């Protein structure tokens, strides 16, 4: 017997069984712009002023967001992330069935989908694309590690065989790395193909002048009739915050990626500009290295976590545009639990924890901060004064960002500031990365090890019943919070500023943008 899961059911399941608590991080969310006079219009070139240039268009190996957000307009996966970031919806597939042993998924492909060169997409393309990602030694293959093989029994059917039941499969398939490319790269080598890639997305390749601009133009074979609205999009490399803002005000760019937090308030009241704060999955943490004394001591970690005034951090760093964090998971992740007892400011309790610790009279320690990152310097300075009442003398060491990363990943630090944004609409990737000391990241580079939390994290991977998964993830979140292996600091939104003639611009909590829905009014 097979279970058939329809489109509607998928959406309902993804949405309804997730505990929805806390919505957003102070952001306004929602699609862009004031109401336009009249409906969408076709045409125009949109200039997107990005913080930095893309690195590569190879969707199976690149970790850089500025590359990902561009090639997502070219490559599309079988399922895509819903607007609330908590589920998936059919995209190049229309539906799937699951075998009774939950180890075989059969997908029906959307009819009429063509690549931007006019050739129809078939199951052979899907099989090739997923297999390529599975082979990528330097990339996202780990997300497909549950897949044992992919079959293409007929041109419109794809069968994925798993090594074991795997709950996050659809979420994993929705990642850009599983985006569909032509079988055998259309006869080219991998390197040649990614110089001018071909996909089924709303836009197709035009040019890339590295360090200057990358342009995509409308894909006339796009499967959603009438879309995209824009003729083209040009991403420009504008590193300076001020210059991006000036370009927006001067009409030279229509979207400013990541305006400085200090300017958000003034941009909200600037004529001709719309300031967006989209809900995101970005969470900032303070990590403790449990290989070093006294951070093996849970009381020390709890004391520090209890001494941090998260509202003060939100006010000082995000200018109020965020929310204190209570859980390892951000609110936009499925199975986030709003009632997770994440430790919040309580000086009396912090002192009590210190009294119970191995260093009741305090100690001297160091926090690593990337030089030039004013947000992190601000956080470190606030922490320095907040930990003083506990007898903790905090030295701030500013180093080159590259060196901070290296020291963090080699566990050569006492405390370090770090962050996470989700890649898939499922907590598994974050949970495994953060709490399993045997994962490549050694528990988010902290060496934290709680066998119960680890066991439940892996149990949740193979539990397909959403209610049972919720129970398991509640235990994981509570365990991680009580152990305070990291201090959960704050959740922040994605800031984007656009000109008022930009409509339909929306960013999902995972950072995905459906630029096919964006249009420019006159």
């Amino acid at each position, binding site marked *: 017997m097979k279970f058939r899961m329809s489109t509607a059911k998928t959406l309902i399941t993804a949405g309804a069984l997730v505990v929805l608590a806390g919505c957003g991080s102070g952001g306004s969310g929602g699609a862009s712009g004031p109401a336009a006079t009249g409906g969408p219009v076709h045409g125009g070139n949109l200039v997107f002023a990005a913080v930095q240039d893309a690195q*590569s268009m190879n969707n199976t190996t690149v970790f850089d967001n500025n590359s990902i957000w561009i090639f997502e307009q070219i490559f599309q996966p079988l399922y895509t992330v819903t607007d609330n970031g908590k589920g998936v919806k059919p995209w190049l597939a229309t539906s799937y069935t699951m075998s009774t042993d939950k180890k075989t998924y059969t997908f029906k492909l959307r009819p009429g989908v063509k690549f931007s060169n006019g050739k129809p997409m078939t199951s052979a393309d899907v099989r090739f694309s997923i297999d390529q990602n599975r082979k990528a030694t330097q990339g996202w293959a780990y997300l497909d590690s549950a897949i044992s093989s992919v079959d293409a029994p007929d041109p419109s059917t794809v069968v994925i065989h798993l090594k074991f039941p795997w709950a996050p499969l659809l979420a994993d398939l929705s990642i850009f790395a599983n985006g569909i490319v032509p079988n055998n790269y259309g006869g080219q080598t991998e390197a040649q193909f990614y110089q001018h890639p071909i996909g089924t997305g709303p836009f197709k390749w035009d040019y890339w002048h590295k360090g200057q601009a990358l342009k995509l133009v409308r894909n006339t074979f796009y499967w959603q009739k009438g879309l995209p609205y824009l003729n083209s999009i040009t991403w420009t490399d504008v590193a300076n915050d001020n210059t991006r803002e*000036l370009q927006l005000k*001067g009409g030279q760019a229509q979207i400013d990626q990541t305006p400085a937090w200090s300017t958000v308030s003034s941009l909200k009241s600037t004529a001709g500009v719309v300031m967006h704060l989209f809900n995101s999955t970005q969470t900032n943490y303070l990590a403790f290295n449990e290989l070093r004394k006294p951070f093996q001591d849970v009381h020390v970690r709890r004391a520090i976590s209890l001494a941090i005034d998260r509202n003060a951090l939100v006010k000082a760093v995000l200018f109020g545009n965020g929310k204190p964090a209570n859980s390892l998971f951000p609110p936009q992740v499925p199975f986030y639990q709003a009632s997770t007892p994440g430790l919040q400011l309580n000086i009396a309790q912090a002192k009590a924890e210190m009294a119970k610790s191995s260093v009741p009279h305090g100690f001297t320690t160091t926090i690593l901060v990337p030089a030039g990152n004013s947000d992190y310097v601000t956080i470190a300075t606030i922490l320095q004064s907040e930990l003083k009442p506990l007898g903790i003398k905090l030295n701030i060491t500013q180093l080159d960002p*590259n060196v901070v990363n290296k020291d963090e990943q080699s566990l050569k630090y006492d405390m370090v500031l770090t962050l996470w944004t989700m890649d898939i609409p499922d907590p598994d990737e974050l949970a495994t990365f953060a709490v399993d000391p045997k994962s*490549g990241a050694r528990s988010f580079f902290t060496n934290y090890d709680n066998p119960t939390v680890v066991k439940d994290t892996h149990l949740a991977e193979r539990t397909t019943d959403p209610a049972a998964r919720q129970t398991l993830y509640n235990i994981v979140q509570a365990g991680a919070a009580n152990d305070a292996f990291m201090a959960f600091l704050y959740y922040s939104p994605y800031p984007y500023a656009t000109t008022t003639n930009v409509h339909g611009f929306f960013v999902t909590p995972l950072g995905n943008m459906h630029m096919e829905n964006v249009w420019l009014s006159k």
Partner: protein
Amino acid sequence: MGRMTFVVRRLLMLVPVAIGVTIVVFFMIHLIPGDPAQTILGIHATPKAIAILHRQWGLNRPLVSQYWLFMDRLVHGNLGLSLYYGTSAASLILSRLPATLWLIAYAAVLAVAVSVPLAMIAATRKDAVRDHVVRAVPLLGLGMPPFWVGILLVYALAIHVHAFPVSGYGTGFGGHLHAMFLPALTVAIALAPVVIRSLRASMLNVLGAEYITTARSKGVPGPRLFLRHVLRNAVIPAVTVLGINIGFLIGGTVIIENVFAIPGIGQLMINSIFQRDFPVVQGVTLVFGVLVVLVNLLADLSYAALDPRVRFDR
């Protein structure tokens, strides 16, 4: 020694300069901590993944062996592959070089265009009000940081008046001329005060010379006297000052390129340092070194063009 011999000799001097630059930069960039593999892989960097990339890039070899490989490639005109983009470092640098050259040349032309008339105005009426104004007002440009001047110019001439684009490089000759005006003017404002003061001082010296008195007594008309006798003789020290300042400017373009989002090699250099993109950093530094030497050579050659008494054997 003839002019050609002088030029060839100076060009040959580029070789030891370039080698010196490569040695200093190569070992400095490799000795500072930080790893390009770590940058590219981010939090997904595992020891195995890092080791694979190091092997691919040859970073697992001894440093001296890496330098030898770099020099071997260099003499074959190959700067290696950018670790970040995976494309040729030389083509990356060449695609960004025109924007920087445009900025430097345009700024130098504007600085000269502003400095010469102002210096003449000041020198012809020493200690008069206009002399004091010309000596004092441009100093404001020297005192204000270029990024601030740039932002003020953008607000005034691009946001409010819409006469120029906010930033960028433009396309085609006319496009570059239009788009690069504000950045070039920003640089020229910082450059001009030094040139004006130098030119004014040497003009005052020349104006007191006996041959000028002689020319005046022979009835040489004012404009001709100024252009043929005063300016030509007074400009030599100013050329030296301009040459030295352009040398500094070549290394300092990064701030202006950043403020005006100009895709030049200054920006490329900074990004490449943060990404630990060794081949590109080495390549850009080499280009900077060569440019500074060439600008100084050009300044030396211009002495001879301006003053026939200048000989090349000293």
